[in-house]
């Protein structure tokens, strides 16, 4: 051991972030769709460590025995109502006003779909709806394309975050255009949350290594063979990617660089 102690690396400060005034510890946001039942949903949510979970608004099923609001832990999770299935600004606004009447609309996920096959967002309608909702007092988290121009407009408008897609909803294709996500991160002063298209843990890690603030996913967990374990994997993948981003990765080299000393070799 050298006699003079060297300057040691400081222990990292607790890594929290702020979304719409909330201080969050988890950077993983999850959906509640596609699960077998309430039990599996509850288990996967717990394993994910998520603090914010999305829900959809639908007509009541008069035959249903239970209701999501009767079993989901409102103390553990902030519910984030989405506008899945809306194809126009008006439908989206109407949907979220009903959510607000249900008393659950502190923050809302705006999602205006442009095509049933790709479920890609209609950014033009999304911009229109975002403006109406902000004027109406909502705190808006919009799902959008990986389009830096649209993201800046939404930020300038007053959205609480931007949520560009990694790939089409439910495709599991991972981040198709890291270059655009990086441009969005570079320009944004509000949180950037990758939403949709993540397929496995390394995809989530990549999103964090690009500098994103969080990742929102549903199918990647719900459609895994073992959803609980995948929820845990995603939680770890996001922590890994975030820590790697903060640690500052090594530079890439076209050629090699020895990791053992190149002097003192026996002759």
């Amino acid at each position, binding site marked *: 051991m050298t006699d003079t102690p060297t300057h040691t690396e400081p222990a990292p400060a607790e890594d929290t972030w702020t979304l719409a005034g909330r201080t969050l510890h988890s950077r993983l946001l999850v959906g509640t769709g596609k699960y077998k039942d309430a039990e599996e949903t509850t288990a996967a949510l717990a394993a994910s460590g998520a603090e914010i979970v999305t829900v959809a608004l639908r*007509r*009541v099923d*008069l035959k249903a025995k239970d209701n999501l609001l009767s079993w989901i832990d409102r103390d553990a999770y902030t519910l984030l109502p989405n506008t899945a299935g809306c194809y126009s600004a008006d439908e989206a606004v109407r949907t979220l006003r009903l959510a607000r009447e249900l008393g659950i609309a502190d923050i809302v996920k705006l999602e205006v779909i442009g095509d049933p096959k790709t479920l890609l967002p209609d950014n033009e309608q999304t911009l229109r709806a975002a403006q109406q909702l902000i004027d109406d007092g909502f705190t808006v988290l919009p799902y959008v394309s990986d389009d830096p121009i649209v993201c800046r407009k939404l930020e300038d408008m007053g959205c609480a975050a931007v949520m560009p897609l990694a790939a089409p909803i439910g495709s599991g294709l991972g981040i198709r255009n890291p270059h655009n996500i990086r441009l969005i991160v570079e320009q944004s002063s509000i949180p950037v949350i990758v939403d949709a298209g993540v397929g496995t843990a390394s995809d989530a890690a990549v999103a964090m290594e690009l500098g994103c603030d969080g990742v929102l996913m549903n199918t990647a967990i719900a459609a895994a063979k073992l959803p609980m374990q995948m929820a845990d994997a995603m939680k770890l993948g996001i922590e890994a990617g975030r820590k790697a981003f903060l640690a500052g990765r090594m530079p890439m080299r076209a050629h090699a660089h020895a990791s053992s000393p190149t002097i003192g070799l026996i002759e």
Partner: protein
Amino acid sequence: MVQDVVVNGEHHAVPEGSSVADLLQQLALKPEHVAVERNREIVPRAELGNTTLSPGDTLEIVTFVGGG
């Protein structure tokens, strides 16, 4: 005497003079678990009791379900 109203796209017979609250009770729905639109206008929760249904009223009764 009963009257006919449309709930989530289906016809329902409700006693004359029923309020939206009466309808929810008839449907075994907890008011705190749903939001209601009557003829495309939101019925505030506080107004459920004193909003009387008229024949032909169209109601959307919604709640939260699992979604991504």
